[in-house]
């Protein structure tokens, strides 16, 4: 996929911007607070309908303005697709609208048309940070890849919130209602578990190879393991549903007593191991960062292989966090992707890159 046109209106510090990105590597250079990350955020919003920087989408709208609009054209396969995402401020919160080729569509239809893989400094905490960070990486990737995954994830989340309220005693406890929510959680959750398991296996294979190419076998093999809250030997729908049902039964009293949903993929994790040892506990910071880089390369490769189309790679200020050797190895890999955007306060030494200087929300081609 190649974004060929990006148009912004009232997006953060951009009153209006027309940008025609190049294929390959686009370097967005400039001092801090000029609008580099805002531009990257806008591209991610155009693709996923979500900001990677904030959960409060009203922040994306230029202050004092009622609506932010992001539109773009992308080359997908042999055809072109026109996308737009608008965020309007209202009395009861923000309202987002999505359109594909000029037609308004639901989010479920919009998501996945323009796929992005983002890499922001917060991702460097992926190994040692909270499990929610790792689940979010898996969910963001799989929701873009499959509308069915997104639907299952959304439904699972809604039923989970309702079951939690029931367990907390917000309404009178009711066995049939609890059984109803559990039934829906098993049905939607089984789909999530199977998809995650296959995805992590694909990530593991790629990350292992990438990691070995970078550092050899000196530290041992890098492994990514899917630590499912509902483990099964054989990954079939029946086996997962049966294990889920059994675990809900054994945890039933604990769930009621604590008023918390203890069973299900909302408690899944992704575990990093190096040479057979848990990287979060035993790895140095350098080893953890190398593992994250390998994971990100693997994520990109997996989405490309499974979607039959290269996603757009968005790199927000990650270079400054890396030492020279890792920078070089990473840029070498990035230079050959179909399209990538990278923000930096310094210079990026890639001859084929298109570089733009950003000063106060103004874009200027610098070669």
């Amino acid at each position, binding site marked *: 996929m190649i974004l060929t046109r990006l148009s912004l209106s009232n997006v953060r510090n951009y009153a209006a911007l027309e940008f025609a990105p190049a294929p390959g590597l686009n370097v967005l250079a400039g001092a801090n607070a000029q609008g580099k990350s805002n531009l990257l955020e806008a591209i991610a919003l155009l693709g996923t309908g979500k900001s990677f920087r904030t959960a409060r989408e009203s922040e994306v709208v230029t202050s004092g303005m009622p609506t932010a609009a992001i539109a773009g054209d992308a080359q997908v396969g042999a055809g072109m697709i026109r996308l737009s995402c608008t965020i309007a401020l209202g009395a009861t919160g923000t309202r987002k609208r999505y359109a594909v080729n000029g*037609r308004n*569509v*639901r989010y*479920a*239809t919009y998501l996945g048309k323009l796929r992005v893989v983002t890499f922001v400094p917060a991702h460097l905490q992926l190994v040692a940070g909270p499990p929610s960070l790792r689940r979010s990486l898996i969910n963001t990737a799989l929701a873009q890849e499959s*509308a*069915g995954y997104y*639907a299952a994830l959304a*439904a699972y989340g*809604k*039923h989970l*919130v*309702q*079951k*939690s*309220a*029931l367990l907390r005693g*917000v*309404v*009178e406890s*009711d066995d*049939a*209602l609890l*059984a*109803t*929510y559990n*039934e*829906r959680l098993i049905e939607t959750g089984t789909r999530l578990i199977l998809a995650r398991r296959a995805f992590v296996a694909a990530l593991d294979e790629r990350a292992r190879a990438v990691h070995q190419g970078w550092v050899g076998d000196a530290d041992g093999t890098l492994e990514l393991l899917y630590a499912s809250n509902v483990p099964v030997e054989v990954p079939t729908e029946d086996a997962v549903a049966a294990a889920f049902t059994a675990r809900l039964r054994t945890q039933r009293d604990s769930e009621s007593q604590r008023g918390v949903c203890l069973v299900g993929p909302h408690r899944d994790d992704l575990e990093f191991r190096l040479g057979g040892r848990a990287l979060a506990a035993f790895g140095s910071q350098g080893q953890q960062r190398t593992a994250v880089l390998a994971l990100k390369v693997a994520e990109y490769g997996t989405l490309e292989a499974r979607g039959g189309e290269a996603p757009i790679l968005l790199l927000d200020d990650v270079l400054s966090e890396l030492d020279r050797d890792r920078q070089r190895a990473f840029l070498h890999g990035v230079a050959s992707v179909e399209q990538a955007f990278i923000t930096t306060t310094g210079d990026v030494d890639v001859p084929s890159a298109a570089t733009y200087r950003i000063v106060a929300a103004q874009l200027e081609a610098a070669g």
Partner: protein
Amino acid sequence: MPTVGPKTAARLVFYLLNRPRAEAEALAEAILAVKDRVRLCSRCFSLTEEDPCALCTDVRRDATLMCVVAEAKDIFALERTSAYHGRYHVLGGLISPMDGIGPAQLRVKELIERIASERPSEVIVATNPNAEGEATALYLSRLIAPSGVSVTRLAYGLPIGGDLDYADEITLAKALEGRRTLQ
């Protein structure tokens, strides 16, 4: 008032100021009549001026069918289709514990009692195809199943006049699941 914003309200005021007094009085009376005369049917909990309502007392309607809806306004939507001639039951909402709405806050007990006394052969749950509508329907079917009465739900499908091309994958997948043999 719902759907009436400040601009519309101002326009209504100016309109009424320009009308004769008698007209304003008639309108005021009509509003009072709504307040005084419209009540809930004690059987199906729809809105009515007479209790039980015309839908419940009309002997031409099929008493073997009972359609469960969330709100009284859903009855008007179904009646406009002229495709359904059975009885109704209004729950008064959808189950949503996070909003403090459990089965006890809705007319679920009344529904079960009606099924026991009226013995319909089929209960059609016509709730919205969202998470709350789905959970409510599944919950009701769990409750009704032991009585032996068959419980059905409205089919999910493609909008008439829409393009397959533009249907989202979820709707399309649901429509595939609910496919039918061509007669």
